[in-house]
């Protein structure tokens, strides 16, 4: 069932929904871009559908709605320790199909891996309902089709933003009532059907091939280029790594918190243990770790067809040194295609 809704009507709906939900969408933050004079688009709570920056891809993914950049786990006062709590309301999350896939990837790690669900993720995640932002064209740099992340049916509503009004499809009973009575139209969302630049995925079938992938000379090329800032990880929807840190509010404070903050496998400190030993010492080694996680390790662990990467392409856009993940994957795939012949194992695409 679809509706055509003016922005004014939509905002009245928004107000209704806000009683039960906090509503998150990509918003424009003026002047907050990485380059002087540019804006940043990232997720935030909206008060109006006019706040939604729908004409561009958001620089950050919606993951910080369910796995915030920084969240308090425990709070310590001089003589008390408490578990943090969050808002009771549900969460309506406006997201494109690839990002909805991305959150499913996070679910694997946070809810499934190790057979136990993570409390701090789950308490957000179980509140989330998706409002899918229709994405028909994609952008030059994204490759969701290659990653199988272009379509989804996990949404309560889908929305097509227009300059004057919105088309909304409702699939969730909970929202049907609030829309009832508005002008009905025939609207079902469309999806991207072809990547502008498709990505070749590598074939790695056994430990020998994995070893061959590890030993490729291409990784060392990143040593000079990558500055290990970790930006590719933070804009990625599916990067889930975090650090647990304890903080005190000032040097002489008796109050403090145990926090969870995003971490990045591209940072030199990611694998550094107390005492200083680091497992992956060079940017190249870290690039290899990341790329293989995204297009090999994840699938090896969880099985099925899906890779971790959802093809949003944000990492390529973001990299301050213009390093392309897509290039890395394509080069890896090409090299492995060659390797496959060399090591004489069965080829499979």
């Amino acid at each position, binding site marked *: 069932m679809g509706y055509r809704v003016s922005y004014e009507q939509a905002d009245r709906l928004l107000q209704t929904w806000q009683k039960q939900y906090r509503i998150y969408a990509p918003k424009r933050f003026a002047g907050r871009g990485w380059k002087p004079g540019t804006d940043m688009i990232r997720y935030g709570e909206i008060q109006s559908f006019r706040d939604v920056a729908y004409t561009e891809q958001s620089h950050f993914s919606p993951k910080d709605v369910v796995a915030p950049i920084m969240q*308090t786990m*425990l*709070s*310590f006062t*001089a*003589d*008390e*320790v*408490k*578990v*943090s*709590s969050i808002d009771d309301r549900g969460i309506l999350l406006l997201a494109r199909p690839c990002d909805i896939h991305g959150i499913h990837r996070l679910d694997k790690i946070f809810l499934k891996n190790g057979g136990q669900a993570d409390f701090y993720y789950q308490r957000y995640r179980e509140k989330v309902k998706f409002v899918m932002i229709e994405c028909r064209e994609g952008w030059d740099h994204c490759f969701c089709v290659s990653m199988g992340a272009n379509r989804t049916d996990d949404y309560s509503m889908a929305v097509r933003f227009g300059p004057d009004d919105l088309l909304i499809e409702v699939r969730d009973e909970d929202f049907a009532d609030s829309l009832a009575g508005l002008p009905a139209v025939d609207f079902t969302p469309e999806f991207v059907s072809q990547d502008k630049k498709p990505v070749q995925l590598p074939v790695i079938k056994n430990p020998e091939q994995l070893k061959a992938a590890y030993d490729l000379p291409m990784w060392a090329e990143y040593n000079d280029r990558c500055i290990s800032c970790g930006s590719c990880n933070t804009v990625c929807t599916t990067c889930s790594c975090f650090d647990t840190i304890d903080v*005190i509010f000032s*040097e*002489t*404070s*008796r109050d403090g918190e145990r926090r969870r903050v995003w971490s990045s496998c591209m940072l030199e400190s990611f694998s550094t243990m107390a005492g200083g030993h680091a497992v992956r010492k060079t940017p190249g080694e870290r690039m290899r770790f990341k790329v293989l996680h995204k297009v090999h390790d994840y699938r090896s662990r969880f099985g099925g067809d899906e890779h971790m990467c959802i093809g949003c392409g944000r990492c390529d856009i973001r990299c301050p040194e213009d390093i392309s993940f897509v290039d890395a994957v394509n080069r890896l795939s090409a090299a492995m295609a060659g390797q496959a012949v060399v090591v004489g194992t069965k080829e499979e695409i």
Partner: protein
Amino acid sequence: MQEQAAKMKDMLDPATVDDLELVLSGPESFAPLTESDAGADDEVQKINTCCRACISNCGVIAHVRNGRVIKLEGNPEDRMSKGAMCAKGLAGIQALYHPNRNKYPMQRVGERGENKWKRISWEEAIDIIARKLMETREKYGAETVFCSTGGGGNPEIWSIARFCNIFGTPNWFEPGCAQCYLPRVLATAMMYGGDDSSIADSNALEIYFPEDTEMQSLVLWGTDPSYSCTASGGAAVVDLRAKGVKTVVIDPRLTPDAAKADVWLPVRPGSDVALMLTWIRYILDNRLYDADFVLRWTNLPYLVNTETNMLLRAETSNDPASPDTFMVLDARTGSPRPLPYPWDDNLDPVLDGGCHIDGIEYKTGYRLLKERVEPYTLEKGAELCWLEPDRIEKGIRMFTDNQPGGLALGVATDQTPNSVQAAMAANIIDLLMGNVERPGALMQRFRKSGVFDMPNYPVPIAAGRLPDEQLKKRLGGIEHKGLHIWYAGHATSIFDAVLTGEPYKPRIWIDRSGNKMGAIADSHKVKRVIDELDFIVHMYMYPTSFSAYADILLPTTEWLETDMMVETCNTLCARQAVTHLWETMDETEIWSRLAKRCGELGHEACRLAFDAEYMGKDLPYWESVTELWDHFLSRIDLTWEQLKQNTPYEYMSKDEWKTYYVYQQTDPQTNLPVGFNTPSKKIELYLESMITLGRTGLPFSACELEPATRDYDPLPYFLEPSESPLAGSELVRSFPLVMTNGRVPLYHHTTLRNVPWMRELYPVPELLIHPTDAEKYAVEHGDWVWIESLRGKIRALASLTQGIMPGVVFMERFWNPETLDSKTRGWQEMNVNVLTKADAPFNDVVGTYTLRGILVKVYKADGPPEGIWQKPEDFRVWLPEPADPTKEVRL
């Protein structure tokens, strides 16, 4: 009060994690976090007060919330600091809330030096001390009790002098005193009778008004205001330089002011007087002095009997308003003639001349001075001071070509046995140029509020209460009579008396302020003295090396807890308590209580000291400091409460206050110019009264004393350091480097080594050494080195720099509170005074010993002293306690 064992060790235990105890006593299960009720911020009170992290008294606005001081900032209304504070002052909060403050009176348990204590009440503490004092007085005489004070941290110097005078002991001393400031005060008082030119001692007030000063040049001799009084004098000198005032800096170290000077004269430590005499000779030879002023307003034209060294008098006056009449050599008649004060236009006095009268040779003061400086040519000065003649000349010319100007003398020259002569010579240089009481000069008699009897120290010292027979027992008081200007004894003489029992054996030491192990020369000797004593009391804000050897510790107030009056230019300011912690007590009150208890135990003079009628202008002892300040402020119709509310209080307008040419004002009694505050009413460059002082103790001693072994010299002379590096010295072969010491901008005296913010910036003392010397002794930048003198050895971190004179090394004085509970008690690791020299030669007039210009050797050490802290995190355990409630303790 219940006895509670408290070990210093517990107070100093460097727990690795802050607040561990509190964290770990927390619950073992977790409750869900509820919205914390942060609540509205409580109101912040802003209270005007004055700093006392050093002696500068800068105006401070303390921000106080719920009784806790949360921020300090400079008070823009302050006439001298103008809204700025230095690092030391800003550290006040960390000093105030230091977890290792002395919080309660403590009594030693266990052996002396074991550093084990139990808490006692104030009543008990005062009673124990008073009983011990009375017992010792009874058995051995009051003079066997000696006291010491110091300028380190919140000094309240004069209560101690008052107590000694009333109790009946002539023996109190300050590690500074003869080594710090007194030589300058003495020389200036005797030669001029107005304020000396010390910037660091808040004189030289001319420099704080750059907008209207006529000053053209400033000589900073052995002083670096940017280090020693950053926010006041340091900033003022910045303003002067920016205005175009030329500066000459005399210092072996390239200090900030030296780096910014027009001429830097790096002088060999201990040779300053030679350089001064070189300046004087150059000024005389080249007739650069203000001839008219010298003739009319100094005593240099007066004739001196070369046999007695006394001035030739035509008439001796019995009227204090009129000076004696002196004889001059009249050029017109070619004969000696009396010169009536202030001048006789009929006479033409010769400046450089001499004559014989009745077979006795007489010379003018000028000629004697000229003869005195005769050997000190530029070349000779350069040779003695390790300088180039051209450079010396350039320095002199920079000063003499840019007049008016001023010469500000610092503490450096006070720290050698040539101390008083340096002050005399420096004054001569400035006064020859006529730099006194004129716009642009440093020596001034600007007006005062009149509330103080002693400059900036309001406690009435009751000097007349000390019986003459007791005064005569003052140790060192015969040889070094200049000390009587501050009613003080001579530290080394007191210590020698303890060690030898001659002429009598002092037995009790009550000390206030600082760490005497770090402040007195030859620290090992101080320890030997301590071992001989019956009883030791230390009152201070923190435990120090010295307190480890004490029997009773008394907790005193930090400056943020103290009430005191301060005079800053034309304003009166209140240093007012903005909070109060634990059972700390203002020292002014401690001494009063001690006197009271002694009175109760039968000390008649102490009992009478509470009798207002009996005490008269010396005032009875007080119950609270407010009483005392109210008394003094009543002189200008103010109360302490009013001053606190209106600080800074402008007691007169700037124009009224800034009075130039005071000496030219007419004395209504005589209708003559009031002249200078000297016996002759002239500037006494030939200081005859030195001779009188040495022979009688007058005018400073309350009664006439036996003469010193030798007369004091009325003119400055150069005394080569006893540990000389010059050719012919035996010692220099084994100890080839000259050591000097001085300040960094983070510490004052022995204070603040326990303040994290200061220590992280300067964790250990650095030995500044020139790269050529470093190479010679195989030392590299960043090496730990031993520095050894005849008296001991210490370590420091070598810092190679071009900015120190070759052949000279520099080190800041230091001690290590973090090793207080170790065998060293914190004073043996890096304390320069382990190296310095407390024995003869002394300055004849005031007994100064040798703190600078000793010989040392330097060699590489394996590493730092054990247990010292160097990393910023090390100092975490000294961070303020997060939530000490401010308690108003009823004592």
